[in-house]
């Protein structure tokens, strides 16, 4: 059905740790993986599935590791990749960083986790919070904790343990929207979309029932309400905890939240957005001598819906690509700092605080060697990163968050809005 075995390899293809789940693929087959990968890479035909004879390798790369699943059946490939990414997630939560060292330093726990994450090729419990209840990193503590039955593992609510207690019951809701706008060299918007996500930090006791109300147009249409601005969500994806059939029938977002931090939902909005931050650039390349770059950043004037005040963008970062053989950088900026990052062939211009309606200018000058680099270089786009707090582009709003727990405590929901760039791209000339 899915994986016969899972391997963690270092960059050279050496097996750091592995687990044979089904025994129907020779474990030595993994030796073919790295040569195969290199052949494909050289030919420019890199592919997430490689095969050698009757063995298929499905792989992902994470920092300095390859995670590889083998199979000789018609496996569910999407399940395998989801699972490999899940392994990365679980290991990262266990070891902070997932890399060669953390695997070696924790091989006993890694084995235990691999044993619990998958059985005979079927993924099992992959929720790291629940796993941490019975697979802990300190052996000494094990005896006490582990003698308990892991009820949550098999509960219908497999993401939240019972008996959680907080003195003060609170839930923090972050509404984060990333906007992706692609502008071509002529200044016309090629594509734009908004990807939003609602994150929770839950500090609630017991088994609370939550209901989230948004200004969702479909919901408003269903209930016949018709006031205020509503938002059309093109597609919504929910955390495991949300009752999908309920949402499907009456658009109610009801759930028992996981404890602590989690992403409750993500959504996609197709409405056309004007770029919040606009870039104008002139890049002149004089072969064999120099490159001159002029970049202007303008922030559109925006008013907050909630309170009438000018918006401010924070941590604005403009990344301008330069040729790889450029040297001796010189910068002039009307605000902020410009820095040359040679390993990425970029100029990074940072502006800590950028009030709406303003515009700033940066000039850069690079020398070019007289002997020209023969290799063709790509033309990466200029990208802008920024954050605008207290604001969502789509106008999505949390209308209410109802919290009901059988003990009847009062709980406070807090809501925060923020808009980020998901990487605004500007194609160069």
């Amino acid at each position, binding site marked *: 059905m899915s994986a016969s075995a899972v391997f963690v390899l270092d960059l050279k293809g050496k097996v750091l740790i592995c687990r044979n789940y089904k025994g129907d693929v020779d474990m030595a087959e993994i030796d073919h993986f790295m040569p195969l990968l290199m052949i494909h890479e050289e030919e420019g035909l890199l592919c997430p599935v490689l095969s050698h004879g009757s063995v298929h390798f499905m792989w992902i790369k994470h920092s300095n590791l390859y995670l590889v699943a083998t199979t000789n059946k018609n496996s569910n490939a999407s399940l395998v990749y989801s699972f490999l990414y899940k392994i990365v997630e679980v290991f990262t939560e266990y070891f902070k960083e997932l890399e060669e060292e953390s695997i070696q330093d924790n091989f006993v726990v890694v084995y235990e986790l691999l044993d619990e994450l998958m*059985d005979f090729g079927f993924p099992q419990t992959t929720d790291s919070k629940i796993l941490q209840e019975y697979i802990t990193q300190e052996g000494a503590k094990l005896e006490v904790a582990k003698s308990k039955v892991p009820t949550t593992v098999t509960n219908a609510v497999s993401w939240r343990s019972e008996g959680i207690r907080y003195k003060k019951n609170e839930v923090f809701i972050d509404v984060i929207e990333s906007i992706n706008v692609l502008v071509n060299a002529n200044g016309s918007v090629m594509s734009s979309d908004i990807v939003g996500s609602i994150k929770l930090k839950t500090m609630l006791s017991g088994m609370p029932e939550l209901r989230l109300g948004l200004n969702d147009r479909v919901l408003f249409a269903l209930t016949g309400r018709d006031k205020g601005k509503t938002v059309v969500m093109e597609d*919504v994806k929910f955390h495991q905890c949300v009752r999908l059939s309920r949402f499907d029938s009456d658009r109610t977002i009801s759930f028992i939240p996981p404890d602590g931090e989690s992403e409750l939902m993500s959504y996609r909005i197709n409405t056309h957005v004007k770029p919040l931050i606009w870039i104008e650039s002139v890049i002149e390349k004089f072969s064999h001598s120099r490159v001159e770059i002029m970049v202007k950043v303008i922030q559109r004037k925006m008013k907050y819906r909630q309170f009438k005040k000018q918006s401010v963008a924070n941590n604005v970062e403009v990344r301008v690509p330069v040729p790889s053989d450029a040297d001796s950088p010189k910068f002039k900026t009307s605000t902020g700092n410009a820095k040359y990052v040679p390993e990425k062939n970029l100029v990074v211009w940072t502006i800590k605080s950028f009030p709406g309606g303003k515009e700033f200018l940066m000039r850069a000058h690079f020398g070019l060697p007289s002997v020209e680099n023969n290799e063709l270089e790509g033309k990466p786009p200029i990208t802008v990163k920024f954050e605008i707090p207290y604001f969502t582009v789509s106008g999505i709003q949390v209308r209410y968050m109802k919290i009901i727990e059988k003990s009847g405590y009062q709980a406070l929901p807090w809501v925060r809005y923020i808009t980020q760039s998901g990487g605004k791209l500007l194609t160069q000339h």
Partner: protein
Amino acid sequence: MTDSKYFTTTKKGEIFELKAELNSDKKEKKKEAVKKVIASMTVGKDVSALFPDVVNCMQTDNLELKKLVYLYLMNYAKSQPDMAIMAVNTFVKDCEDPNPLIRALAVRTMGCIRVDKITEYLCEPLRKCLKDEDPYVRKTAAVCVAKLHDINAQLVEDQGFLDTLKDLISDSNPMVVANAVAALSEIAESHPNSNLLDLNPQTINKLLTALNECTEWGQIFILDCLANYTPRDDRESQSICERVTPRLSHANSAVVLSAVKVLMKFMEMLPKDLDYYGTLLKKLAPPLVTLLSAEPELQYVALRNINLIVQRRPEILKHEMKVFFVKYNDPIYVKLEKLDIMIRLASQANIAQVLAELKEYATEVDVDFVRKAVRAIGRCAIKVEQSAERCVSTLLDLIQTKVNYVVQEAIVVIKDIFRKYPNKYESVIATLCENLDSLDEPEARAAMIWIVGEYAERIDNADELLESFLEGFHDESTQVQLQLLTAIVKLFLKKPTETQELVQQVLSLATQDSDNPDLRDRGYIYWRLLSTDPVAAKEVVLAEKPLISEETDLIEPTLLEELICHIGTLASVYHKPPSAFVEGSRGVQHKRLPGSAGSGESVDSPDPGSAAGASEAPPAVIPSQGDLLGDLLNLDLTPPTTTGPPPAPSSGMQLGAMDLLGGGLDSLMGAGFGAAPAAMPASFSAPVSGGLDDLFDLGGGVGMPMGAYSPPKTIWLPAMKAKGLEISGTFARRAGVIQMEMTLTNKAMSVMTDFAIQFNRNSFGLAPAGPLQILTPLSPNQSIEASLPLSTVGPVMKMEPLTNLQVAVKNNIDVFYFSCQYPISMLFVEDGKMERQVFLATWKDIPNDNESQFQIKDCHLNATSNKLQGSNVFTIAKRTVEGQDMLYQSMKLTNGIWVLAELRVQTGNPNYTVSTLIFGV
């Protein structure tokens, strides 16, 4: 302190030291020692010698230590089967431990010890665990049944574990249900005929209930299992769809894809005029689009599947072109897939946008991507007629960039555009000619030469251009040489006066100075044609060419249907049926989409054969059987007299109406019914034997498996001719898919890689349905079996003999050409069974000119019809008249032509007389 310290001991005598530590009295020391053992195992050292000592540590109440020992056991039990028995007792004991974690751990590990000897000891503990009060243990035990089944299927059946497993589908805990479903599906997959997953509305209901409650992985198991179910009617289908659609909002992409699979499959059963059908179509688009924001590998799987979905139901994503635009930082495999889908979605409405994008891509740096983008522009021109002009001008712009590989790629596609729209864009030829000197790739050179030859009369200096190529004739690749030969002959026919010298030069180069048989043969043919009958030569060489088809890379419909049933799996990623890459799955039934119900018409274009066949039936009067048969018997069965050799195929001959029986039977039937009466050749036996004779041989064969007859492999390409590569092969039809099955043997001294295959145009449009999958390099003296599914949607050109197939195989060494013949029976389609009445009427309606007759020797009627049916030759009626057994049969070819046959056999005489009637549709 970290575990890394365990990796550092590399002293000599380590094993002895570890042995001592393992046998230590101190618990802590023991645990440390086991960790060291596991660490050694992890880095690949053989520590199997410590087996007894490690197993001795098994009886412990320390869970961490127990897990490590179990881990060790799983790794080494197979190499020490006798000692593995030592562990049995502890397993049995642990399965009764009060701690459910330990019970589950024991039952989980037990199944991973693949030692036959100990399996029987494990049955009792497993039985208990399957009924355990703790769901955690039950869900683990459910999986253990699948493990045990893999080791010893008989034991599992005898012990009744399968029934217990089926009972677990009704378990109160959703996790247990999910694992039971997973285990049953796994077992059913390896035993396709076990009828294990006997899904009925009750179990489906249970599964759908559990679907709402189990983990994301459990949801995938259940959805994948649901996909195997065939609802009874459209109402049931709709109600399942309604309960599956909420899954499209799941955050896990794999859940979404599995839900898409169920919906795509069950949708087939919904009437298209149903409101719900439209709703469902609308619901599918947004989640598919969202999959493109997942991790790149998942995006890749999604895109490969979207490619299938777009072919099956283009309406779902027709408005979503923009999301397939390539992003700067997409990995190359995502870029290439997006490009493919962009072309599939291209239509008149969005072509401007698409072209703007493609033009942008063509200026990027990644050579492979740029090439594909240029090709894509050509494909757009061919697909969307209204855009052709814009595409051509875009291509011209690109040629102006003078980037070498862009220019070459553009010229190759412009050639195709010329083929598709003859006499429309010749004004660009001048621009193309300017770039003649920069072309260094054979394909581009050949394309350019073709253009010059084809339009020789409009290019003033065509002779000079072609002459310039001729100088280095021997250094060119075969492709270019052949093209140059043809082009110069064309030029000669168009401008005979000034090019006589040139044509003589090329003919002598081709026939006298070349070792290449193809080139030589083609040279001789031209030479003789030109010297005997220049008018005929003109008719042959300058004949009007058949149009090229719009989309050449569509997946063959039956394969597409099968792949839709495998959405999300490797099959859908490779675009190949599982049987093509999973060992031992040959006999496994191919999945099919359920038929549509109610008023909903089939998605496929209505089958031309059956529709036409039906309309051919007499409108009202249906005479009684006896009369009809009488009529049949009165048919004139004597072979018509010969009136000379077959005429050369007329250039305008309708492609669908093709000669079936090969060789001499050239224009046996013309377009449709009796449109082109033709002469009958004298001898029938020789050409026929290739196809039908083989089939009849079956009559004598014993123990042949049912299914289409496939002749034994013969050597197609001897090693001597192909620098050490030997190819032998045959054709087979499996579950509606024509397969070309080859054995490639490397008889050279060096490794062969990069295999690829191409077909020349052929009579039935056979074309590879996918690339030739030879994924491993072929070492010297190694043989590899390759099975290539074929489609019949490729370009069509009549071949001589009819079933001749010219194949080019490429590897890292060279390109090799060979030709082979396929048995005509490969082309008989599954729905070739004609209604009895229709058969009778049609038989009468087909003009005698379309009939041929021949004899087959040494055949036995008994069992023949069954065997023939396996090859899609359907027996419609059987009759004994005047001591003769008569069999009436129908078959239908992939291109919609029907063949009706009558077999007559004199009782006691093993020779058959076959009368064949053919009509095209």
